[in-house]
């Protein structure tokens, strides 16, 4: 399916992916009573944060992420995304890591789990990171900075 006016968009794959993410988060909530917030779970796996989630459980979730990606790669016959250079990835990674700890979450915890229950903190956090994300890309484009190789 092609979205009129947006030839590069893949709305059906997007919706399918979103539903899978929603099911994963629902399974986490209704199955074990927790929020599927990736930054928090990753921090727990690395023993950076204290939480009642056992470190071994955090690892199970973290290991599941690339396994799920692998399944989609097999079915779709390989993916060829372009990534930023190592130095850009390192800078962005540090900022993302620090930001998610200070802001108590990322796209999954705030954007999916929090927004869907209309948590005021998550609504504000999501509006904030969307705004700065859009501004960052706009400024980089205005400066002619091409980061993806």
């Amino acid at each position, binding site marked *: 399916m092609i979205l009129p006016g947006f030839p590069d968009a893949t709305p059906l794959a*997007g919706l399918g992916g979103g539903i899978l993410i929603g099911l994963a988060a629902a399974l986490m909530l209704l199955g074990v009573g927790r929020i599927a917030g990736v930054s928090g779970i990753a921090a727990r796996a690395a023993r950076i944060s204290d939480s009642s989630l056992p470190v071994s459980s955090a690892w*199970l979730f973290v290991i599941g992420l690339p396994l799920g990606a692998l399944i989609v790669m097999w079915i779709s016959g390989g993916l060829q995304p372009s990534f930023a250079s190592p130095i850009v990835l390192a800078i962005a990674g540090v*900022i993302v*890591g620090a930001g998610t700890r200070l802001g108590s979450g990322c796209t999954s915890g705030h954007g999916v789990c929090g927004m869907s229950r209309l948590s005021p*903190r998550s609504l504000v956090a999501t509006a904030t990171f969307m705004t700065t994300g859009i501004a960052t890309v706009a400024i980089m484009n205005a400066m002619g900075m091409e980061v993806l190789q």
Partner: protein
Amino acid sequence: MPRQLTIFGSGILFGAGLTLGGMTDPKRVRGFLDLFGNWDPTLAFVMGGAVLVMAVAWIVQPRLARPLFADAFSIPTRRDLSPKLIGGAALFGIGWGIAGLCPGPGIAALVIEPISAAIFVSAMLAGMFLVRLVEGGA
């Protein structure tokens, strides 16, 4: 055991969804954030689909005395809008915009583009650790 399997299954589903939806493709993520340029709306469908399904789960949740495979719910209860929350989210958005990766897709991409993803994830953990150091944790 069902508890561990549920968490593992959730991780697998989550990773599959991120990859299918295009979140592990920095070009698509930055295209979505490029609202004032060549905008790619795909991620709005990802977000919309995920939020819709999860909204149903939040309707079911209060009707359960406890989770299916655990003794109690462990759900955030804070409602305060602190400068730390907003500053942290602002910072996170900047990092997300720079490389087009957030934590989940960064980890999932370890099997797609191992070296790039490993650099991003290592740096992300370093950033998390830095906050812990500054905040005076052990």
